[in-house]
């Protein structure tokens, strides 16, 4: 369910903007032109943007100003892209980071 604020008591109503379709982990979401990936996904109720590479703990927006790299995702195959700093483009394919193998760690997992 969309959590987007269309009518704000102080800021007023959202002006007409071009809707863009993009994918996150295979599902299609709608963003508006000028919105970041993190913003559009937050409006769509998606809070988990990736999992920690080693422990699998869920991660999402932390600083939202491009400082902390907590919201890093893969965009069209390019890894480590900050969702909070990247504007959505039409047909963009975003995937969440997943747990990586730790074959050299004691008790680690190969895959």
């Amino acid at each position, binding site marked *: 369910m969309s959590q987007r604020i269309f009518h704000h008591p102080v800021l007023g109503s959202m002006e007409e903007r071009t809707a863009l379709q993009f994918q996150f982990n295979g599902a299609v979401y709608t963003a508006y032109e000028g919105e970041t990936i993190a913003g559009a996904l937050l409006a769509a109720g998606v809070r988990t943007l990736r999992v920690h590479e080693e422990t699998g703990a869920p991660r999402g927006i*932390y600083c939202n100003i491009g*400082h902390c*790299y*907590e919201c890093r995702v893969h965009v069209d195959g*390019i890894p*480590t892209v900050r969702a909070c700093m990247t504007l959505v483009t039409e047909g963009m394919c975003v995937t969440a980071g997943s747990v990586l193998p730790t074959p050299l760690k004691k008790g680690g997992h190969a895959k």
Partner: protein
Amino acid sequence: MDAQQVIICRCEEVSLEELLSTAREYQCTARELKLRTRAGMGCCGGRTCRILIEQIVEQATGQVPTHTVSLGYQPPVRPISFQTLGGKSS
């Protein structure tokens, strides 16, 4: 506040408890604490937790950060991908 629950380094997922116990056990410098726990060695380059790590060391060992040997800034100052370094525009 549960020190086990408080994450200091989010990139490498290192808790306050882990940092405090390591700093107390080894009475080490901020740099050694970083190398022992990997705190500050993650994707963001320690930009979020650097100051906290130095404060933890100060609290546990009494060492005041001098900024000559402890946690310095190495180039590139901002995290940059090999793709960008190789001239491929992102």
